[in-house]
């Protein structure tokens, strides 16, 4: 009996080997780079928490996606630049003002680069900033409540791409215009022929100061030649006090840029001595110029209602007049990303058309500046000699190198867009040590803390631009793919594919524990300062002011107070100010009313939100809670009676007998 079993097994063995080889052979496109323990490495058991939060920009959805790593689970989406019916952001009276701009109400956005606040060059879990390209804006999101708390518009900018990157102590968030535009002496966008590009078009780099409480204001802008400014990163360690911006189109072409802006062998990285610029500002140098822009912020003193203020001026620094704030580093060829390694010694560019990755040395750059080792100047800005500042070039880095992040162990990881791979290389000797395929066309990549002075070099996330054949196909459009790669060992190992929302550009990651310790679970009712709050059912009431009706309403599991309302008339503008009386974690209540033309509300415990409703016909209209809140959630409903405009029905309202 026993012998028979053995022989059976012996017969099986070659068959198993054969099948394995065949399967491996079938996998022609090489996606066998993942292996069997990958599942174990990304498995987060039920009830366990992910080790990292990943924040991925939503691109054209204008939001910020929050993912757990290593599971790749989508945890939350934070509305930032676009209206969100899910909770009434951008529709409710409290949040509408967040989307105000000098162009009026702009309810959508093209968000790009999230950046966590830092202290001493390390992510600190206070805020995350994100830029909006189309209507130049920068938002600050509080990680205590995962909510957009402030949005500032960038004046004299025509596409806020190289943003939002922070300095090592979050002194500044930087921003740069992607598109240069014709500007007159008063910084007005001129009505001129586009042909006049070389003479009239200018760019600006902006530095937004961040206060201890997070308040943002534009401290200064630097006037720049009419290039296209692309990406940025701040210096750190020895290079702290400097910020680096890539530019393309040093040709200053204005048509068919794919050809006309790809001619020069080298474009520039602009090195900005922001500390020196800030000193100039303190000395009152530069010029206050027209620069109308809007700042929107949640006013915590007044009930968390967003307010807008318009600022009319901005300080402009002209590098032709103020020496030593800008230098150009020649960089091959149409550089896209610019990244500074954790030691702060090296400035690495991704030349999207370059066949090498140039690595500049900060020490050499300073030396070249001191020796005035210039090869020329552009608009009064000195151009340093390429050979004088170069630390080295990474040979064979893949085609179309774009962005680089770091593991804190001396290695850099660069995405190669065209050859669809990530290339790992040694920063000191610029030798490639490993490479891994991605699926497909990676743009940015992210290592938690990977652009700070203290990376958590455990995982890398590749943010791919093309997703085809990785998931069940949904049509021509498929959301972009992120890929989680283990970088803890010598060889990179693909662990997981997961889809994202919108078109993520950059991402940031942070240890979950740094965020969890600041987390808000609910708002304290006694701290609710909303002018239309009702912090108990006894305070609920209805007030009429002409055709404006204010309903002070409360919600608690499982009823509204009041839940029967009469005395509303056609033509009234009814404001439902709904206060959620709950003081318990994860018990929001919803509010929706038939025929509402804007959105529903999702009101957090202790919070007051306001929905406007304009009844257009008579009858009785139901309202209800949209968030399944308790066993009796379905019963959480009420009615509003709407009478004709000329009726003299008095208010009648209440809950229960």
């Amino acid at each position, binding site marked *: 009996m026993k012998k028979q079993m053995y022989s059976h097994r012996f017969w099986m063995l070659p068959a198993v080997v054969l099948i394995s080889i065949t399967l491996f052979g079938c996998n022609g496109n090489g996606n066998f780079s993942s292996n069997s323990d990958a599942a174990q490495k990304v498995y987060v058991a039920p009830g366990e928490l992910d080790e990292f939060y990943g924040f991925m920009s939503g691109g054209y959805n204008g939001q910020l996606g929050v993912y757990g790593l290593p599971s790749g689970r989508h945890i939350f989406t934070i509305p930032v630049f676009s209206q969100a019916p899910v909770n009434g952001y951008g529709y409710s009276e409290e949040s509408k003002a967040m989307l105000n701009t000098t162009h009026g109400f702009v309810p959508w956005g093209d968000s790009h680069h999230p950046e966590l606040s830092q202290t001493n060059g390390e992510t600190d879990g206070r805020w995350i900033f994100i830029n909006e390209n189309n209507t130049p804006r920068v938002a600050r999101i509080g990680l205590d409540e995962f909510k957009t708390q402030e949005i500032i518009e960038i004046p004299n900018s025509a596409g806020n791409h190289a943003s939002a990157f922070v300095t090592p102590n979050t002194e500044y968030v930087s921003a740069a215009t992607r598109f240069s535009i014709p500007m007159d002496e008063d910084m007005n966008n001129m009505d001129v022929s586009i042909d006049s590009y070389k003479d009239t078009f200018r760019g600006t780099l902006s530095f937004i100061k961040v206060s201890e409480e997070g308040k943002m204001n534009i401290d200064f802008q630097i006037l720049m030649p009419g290039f296209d400014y692309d990406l940025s990163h701040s210096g750190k360690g020895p290079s702290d006090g400097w910020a680096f911006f890539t530019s393309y189109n040093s040709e200053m072409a204005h048509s068919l840029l794919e050809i006309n802006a790809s001619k020069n062998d080298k474009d520039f990285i602009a090195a900005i001595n922001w500390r020196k610029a800030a000193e100039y500002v303190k000395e009152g140098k530069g010029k206050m110029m027209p620069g109308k822009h809007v700042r929107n912020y949640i006013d915590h003193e007044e009930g968390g209602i967003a307010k807008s203020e318009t600022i009319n001026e901005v300080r402009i620094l002209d590098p032709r007049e103020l020496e030593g704030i800008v230098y150009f580093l020649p960089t091959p060829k149409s550089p896209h990303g610019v990244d500074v390694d954790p030691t702060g010694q090296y400035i690495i560019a991704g030349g999207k058309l370059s066949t090498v990755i140039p690595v500049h040395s900060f020490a050499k750059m300073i030396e070249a500046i001191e020796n005035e080792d210039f090869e020329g100047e552009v608009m009064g800005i000195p151009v340093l000699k390429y050979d004088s500042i170069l630390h080295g070039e990474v040979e064979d880095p893949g085609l179309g190198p774009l962005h680089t992040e770091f593991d804190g162990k001396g290695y850099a990881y660069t995405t190669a867009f065209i050859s669809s791979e990530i290339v790992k290389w040694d920063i000191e000797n610029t030798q490639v040590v490993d490479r891994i395929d991605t699926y497909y066309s990676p743009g940015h990549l992210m290592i938690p803390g990977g652009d700070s002075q203290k990376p958590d070099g455990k995982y890398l996330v590749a943010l791919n631009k093309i997703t085809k054949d990785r998931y069940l196909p949904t049509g021509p459009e498929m959301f972009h793919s992120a890929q989680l790669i283990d970088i803890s060992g010598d060889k990179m190992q693909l662990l997981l594919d997961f889809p994202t929302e919108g078109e993520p550009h950059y991402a940031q990651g942070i240890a979950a524990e740094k965020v969890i310790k600041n987390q808000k679970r*609910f708002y304290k009712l006694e701290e609710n300062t909303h002018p239309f709050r009702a912090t108990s059912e006894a305070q609920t009431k209805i007030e009429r002011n002409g055709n404006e009706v204010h309903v002070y309403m409360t919600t608690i599991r499982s009823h509204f107070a009041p839940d029967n309302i009469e005395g509303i008339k056609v033509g009234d503008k009814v404001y439902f100010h709904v206060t959620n009386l*709950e*003081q318990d974690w994860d018990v929001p209540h919803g509010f929706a009313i038939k025929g509402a033309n804007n959105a529903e509300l999702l009101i957090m415990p202790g919070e007051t939100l306001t929905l406007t409703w304009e009844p257009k016909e008579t009858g009785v209209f139901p309202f209800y809670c949209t968030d399944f809140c*308790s066993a009796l959630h379905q019963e959480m409903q009420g009615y509003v009676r709407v009478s004709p405009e000329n009726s003299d029905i008095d208010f009648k309202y209440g809950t229960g007998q």
Partner: protein
Amino acid sequence: MKTSHKIWMAFAALLLIGIYLVPIWSIGMEAPQYPEGIGMNIMVDNIEGKEPQDLKNINGLNHYIGMKPIEPASIPELKIMPYIFGFLIISGLVIAGTGKRTLILFWLGIFILVSIAGLVDFYLWGYDYGHNLNPDAPIKVPGMTYQPPLIGSKQLLNINATSLPHIGFYISLVSMSIAGLAWWKSKDQKS
């Protein structure tokens, strides 16, 4: 009574000041949707949530089963108790001053009677809250009552309620023991 015994008696009385600072009893509740727990502490003059909002949330949950809301301001015992302990502290100090050891026995007797009365009252209070339910309650389970246990754990629907003495109760026990010891040690002496 020797001076040392007087000091011990005074100490036993003064120890009761601690009652005003810490909870005497505590009821904790766990449910699937409250993995972090929710609960209340019974103080000498108040009932407080373990977390500031807990009492409000307990009342919010209790209304489903028709239990009366727990409103500390309307519970007469919480108004009397501070005076009872005040009386024990002052009378204990007076007894220590006079040095009459038989009075310690009286003091202990009163203390023990008060404690038993307190526990009986607590039981009756729990009985009333658990049995005297609003007939209009949304959730009615035939035969179900919601009296929390006097001491120990009990499963009430999806909630596991645990009722245990807190530091204040143990302070009382220590105070009694010290007073008892003062009485016992001073036995062989003439007062």
